């Protein structure tokens, strides 16, 4: 199985170069640790995306793509007391697998483009794509790209908030949002990079035994899933039942990332009225709740009115946790939407005291606090190295041994330990 297909893109020169990793990189680094090594090699200006050796394989929850950058790479760094040098932002859903199916395992972005630009990756090639004339919010951008850009399966996009240089902007996977609370959107905007489109038309090889192993492991995990719980259990564990009451009246449907047997997200379908016409007709709205912390922050502040607000935050490319901090004290649906709009345009004065401190900025800051302390951080570091969802690994830590069976030839468990240790120590 091939791994470590690397491409270095110089955005200022609009060139892309396939790089063969040398012996040191090959021997010691995988996943987020390789991102770290690449940042060290190409400088703090670089923005690196990379999947792990298990990303896109038959290993359950093999959905992780890690975006890594140095703190100074963002145009306006995130205002958090816990900021550290390197940040690894987890990108889940289908971003990781499609990244690898596009023929690249690691992507290094250097320099800054002279105008807002998009990259299209497929079959190991990188193309520069023109930004549609009317980009607008994140869903509109994705829709217009589906029409004008070459075919793609997934996209990592930034929204109007990032364009306005708002420090609370968050990168989104398609229009579904992400767990970016550490400034990946800012780092992309600093490079004038509006998004990365992943064609995903290729594939990766697998061992003959992987299908059977996957089936057995999925069965095992499903037996434990009831105990581990899904979205509601995670939210309840983090904040009590109050935040779940805010979901009353909505129809919830489980959602999962690529090849994950234990869904921890939900699609919420809800009825809403236009806040400008409170007595108007009801219409249906729906939103994917993948950001547990973002939902908790909004639900604590606005209760039952939070669903349209989180959708609006995602539409504008804002981090919902930070958006919650900027809502007016008095609940008013119309003025709440106006406040989010103003925030996305960089309107209100931003003060560090009003911002939500990310629980763990070195790992993107968006992970639900399932476990805390050193052990949980070590598991997260291992997940970032393997390319497996860190939430999954925290919920099912006993699956680590089984997951190692899916490792491609050439990646030894010992090198994984070293790599995880590096990521952990850096964090």
């Amino acid at each position, binding site marked *: 199985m091939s791994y470590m297909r690397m491409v270095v893109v110089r955005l200022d020169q609009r060139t892309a170069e396939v790089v063969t990793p040398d012996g040191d990189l090959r021997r010691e680094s995988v996943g987020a640790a390789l991102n770290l090594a690449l940042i060290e090699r190409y400088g703090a200006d670089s923005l690196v995306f990379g999947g792990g050796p298990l990303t*896109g*394989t*038959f290993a359950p929850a093999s959905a992780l793509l890690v975006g890594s950058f140095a703190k100074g790479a963002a145009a306006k760094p995130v205002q958090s007391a816990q900021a550290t040098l390197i940040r690894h932002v987890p990108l889940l859903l*289908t971003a990781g*697998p499609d990244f690898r*199916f596009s023929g690249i395992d690691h992507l290094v972005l250097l320099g800054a483009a002279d105008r807002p630009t998009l990259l299209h990756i497929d*079959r190991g090639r990188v193309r520069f794509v023109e930004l549609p004339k009317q980009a607008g919010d994140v869903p509109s951008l994705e829709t217009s790209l589906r029409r004008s850009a070459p*075919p793609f*399966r997934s996209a990592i996009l930034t929204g109007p908030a990032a364009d306005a240089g708002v420090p609370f902007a968050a990168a989104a996977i398609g229009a579904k949002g992400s767990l970016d609370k550490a400034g990946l959107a800012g780092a992309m905007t600093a490079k004038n990079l509006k998004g990365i489109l992943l*064609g*995903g*038309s*290729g*594939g*990766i*090889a*697998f061992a003959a035994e992987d*299908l059977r192993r*996957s*089936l057995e492991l*999925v069965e095992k995990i*499903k037996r434990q899933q009831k105990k581990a719980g899904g979205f509601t259990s995670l939210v309840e564990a983090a904040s009590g039942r109050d935040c779940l009451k805010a979901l009353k009246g909505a*129809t919830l*449907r*489980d*959602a*999962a*990332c*690529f*090849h*994950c*047997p234990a*869904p921890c997200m939900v699609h919420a*379908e*809800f*009825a809403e009225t236009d806040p400008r016409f409170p007595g108007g007709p*009801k*219409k*249906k709205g*729906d939103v994917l709740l993948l950001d547990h912390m973002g939902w908790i922050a909004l639900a604590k502040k606005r209760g039952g009115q939070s669903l349209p607000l989180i959708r609006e935050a995602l539409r504008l490319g804002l981090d919902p946790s930070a958006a919650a901090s900027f809502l007016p004290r008095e609940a008013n649906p119309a003025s709440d939407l106006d406040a989010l709009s103003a925030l996305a345009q960089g309107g209100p004065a931003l003060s560090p005291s009003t911002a939500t401190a990310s629980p763990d900025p070195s790992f993107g800051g968006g992970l639900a606090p399932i476990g805390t302390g050193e052990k949980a951080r070590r598991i997260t570091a291992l997940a970032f190295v393997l390319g497996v969802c860190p939430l999954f690994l925290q919920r099912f830590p006993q699956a680590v041994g089984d997951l190692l069976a899916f490792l491609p030839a050439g990646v030894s468990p010992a090198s994984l330990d070293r790599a995880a240790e590096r990521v952990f120590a850096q964090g």
Partner: protein
Amino acid sequence: MEPANDIRDNELGIDDLRPRRPQKRTLMDRFMPRRRPFILFDPDRCTDCGTCEMVCATRNTGNIAPASASVRVVRDDVRGRNLAVYCQHCRKPLCVEACPTRATTKGEDGIVRIDKLFCVSCGLCAAACPEAAPLRDGRTAEIRKCDLCEGDPLCVWHCPNGALVYTKGKAFRWIKGLRWTVQLLSFLLLVMVFLGTFCYFNAGSFGMSCPTGALQNIFATGRVLLAGLTSMLAIFFLTVLFSRFFCGWICPFGFILDLVDRIIPKKFGLPAFLKTRMAKYGILGGAAAGSAAFGFQVFCTVCPIGTLCRSYGQQAMFRGAEMAIVPLLAGLELTERRSWCRYFCPVGALLAIFALLHLLKIVIGAKKCKKFSCIQCAEVCPMGIIDADKLREGLSPEIPMTECIGCMRCLDRCPYGAAKIRFRWQKGVPGEVEL
């Protein structure tokens, strides 16, 4: 024979490239249609994890390459659910008709396959398919289509949430069995055992009669008979409770029409003005007016139900021209299913008026119904009141209960449980959020 002729025999001519004519249904197919293997998809269970695409691609290409899979899960924002796009192995596959090289075939096992040897990847099958199920490989541009892994689909095995279920269809449809039994018993009782009782029945002081006959009698005589009133009330309550249950389950002529429908093919069309279904009300009005004018129940002389009920037994057998009415009107089945009931029957018209007060209704939830190409409910509905176009658009059709004969074929046939019986005042349809 010379070698040149041999070569010519193996050449493809223009006739070979034309779409083939649809196969004729045999009599056996009409009474006992073959069970169709297919995969059921439950969007409520689907978490969009993409495992189905992943494992499908491993069979197609030997790699994990979802872009090369024969199944695709897409988020349908209009219907608000995930939608799995894959071949339904239709009973009458349009892709087979559309294929110019005859690469697409439906096997004896019911599985529709593409023969790679003959496929030229023109994509006409995908254009013809209402599901767009033949998918173009993102890498090789080949057309790929689910072949159910030859009867053991990998995606079903690997779906972690049980959203995919492999089925060969319902082995026994209990509503169908029950309805045919009731219809047969009703026919035997009304036509062969209690002769003529549908038109008029009297047991001591209790009497019942056909409601349309009773209505005509009122107009003919100017008097209201107790028997007519009782029967009208009985039919009224039956209809209010179960809609036109009589037409679907009890009517002996309806039973004859259901039998005839299975034998004779549909050859002709009916004029467009009939489609409003108002003609039967005109006939009912005409019958009432005629009865008032002539002083006897004029429609009863040609009523196919009455004719059937009076046509058997020593006194009634072969009563001249009356016997010609049943086959004559049954011949209307050459046009549409139950066309007599749809457009002409005044008994049905009276029941339709009663059914305005229906307590129960049938609802079909387009969101629960997963497949654009399925529309089996619309196909089996004998009254043709389920809007297949709306279902294809992903919208829940509104079913006019005045026209519904309560046969429940739609409930019986739907593999997704999207057709349900609800009370009239219940809002919402299966699979949709009630606003």
